[in-house]
């Protein structure tokens, strides 16, 4: 299989459309014929990351590299950054507002889920500048 690079802009603000990028990625991974378990784990990570960019950072961009033996997903935003990563990684910690909560988000489970479903996860963040979450999933 050839290495494939996918790029998806993620609009901020609109929580109704949020998840489109993840849906598109999932379809593409299916077409590439990757194993169902790999597709599901990648899709969950991407979806959690996409929702986080919409809720917490007013959007951003997702870049997906599908290689021979791993999928690398980079979710890049220019949002407020995460002041305390250890705290953000704790299950149940959330700063989500009412709008997100009304739609079923804000359990404080997204980042812990991404950690669990990925083989590697890295967060680079700077307060006031933005956040990049990188996820690796072995094929």
């Amino acid at each position, binding site marked *: 299989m050839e290495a494939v690079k996918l790029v998806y802009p993620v609009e901020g603000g609109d929580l*109704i459309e949020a998840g489109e990028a993840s849906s598109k990625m999932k379809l593409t991974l299916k077409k590439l014929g990757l194993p169902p378990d790999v597709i599901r784990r990648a899709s969950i990570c991407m*979806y959690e990351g996409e929702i986080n960019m919409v809720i917490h950072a007013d959007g951003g961009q997702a870049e997906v590299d599908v290689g021979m033996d791993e999928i690398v997903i980079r979710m890049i935003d220019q949002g407020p950054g995460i002041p305390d990563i250890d705290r953000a990684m704790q299950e149940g910690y959330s700063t989500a507002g009412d709008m997100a909560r009304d*739609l079923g988000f804000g359990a404080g*489970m997204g980042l812990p889920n991404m950690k669990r479903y990925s083989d590697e996860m890295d967060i680079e963040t700077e307060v006031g500048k933005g956040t990049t979450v990188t996820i690796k999933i072995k094929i």
Partner: protein
Amino acid sequence: MKLSEVRDILDAEVLYGEDELDREVFSACGSDFMSDVLAYVKNQALLLTGLVNPQVIRTADMMDMKCVAFVRGKQPDENVLALARERDMVIMRAPIRMYDACGKLYAAGLRGDV
């Protein structure tokens, strides 16, 4: 458990996928928190929820879930049903509350952790 049985037990109305009620589900998950649902991975699962918005369908789709049952008689709008159609996901609406819906299905043998 077949989806037709799920419908009968919940006394539910099928809003999409009337022809697909022969599909089987082997486990179920009930929650109003999407990340809670995303933490739950099982093959061929059913989602019970009291939320009706497009993110419910997207979440279920990421999990490869076969059916979403809305409890408390909540009616999804056309936007939500269109997303379900695109994904070929069966949609039901049950008049009862979450606690009773889960209890009835559990008693009939559909478990969360199988």
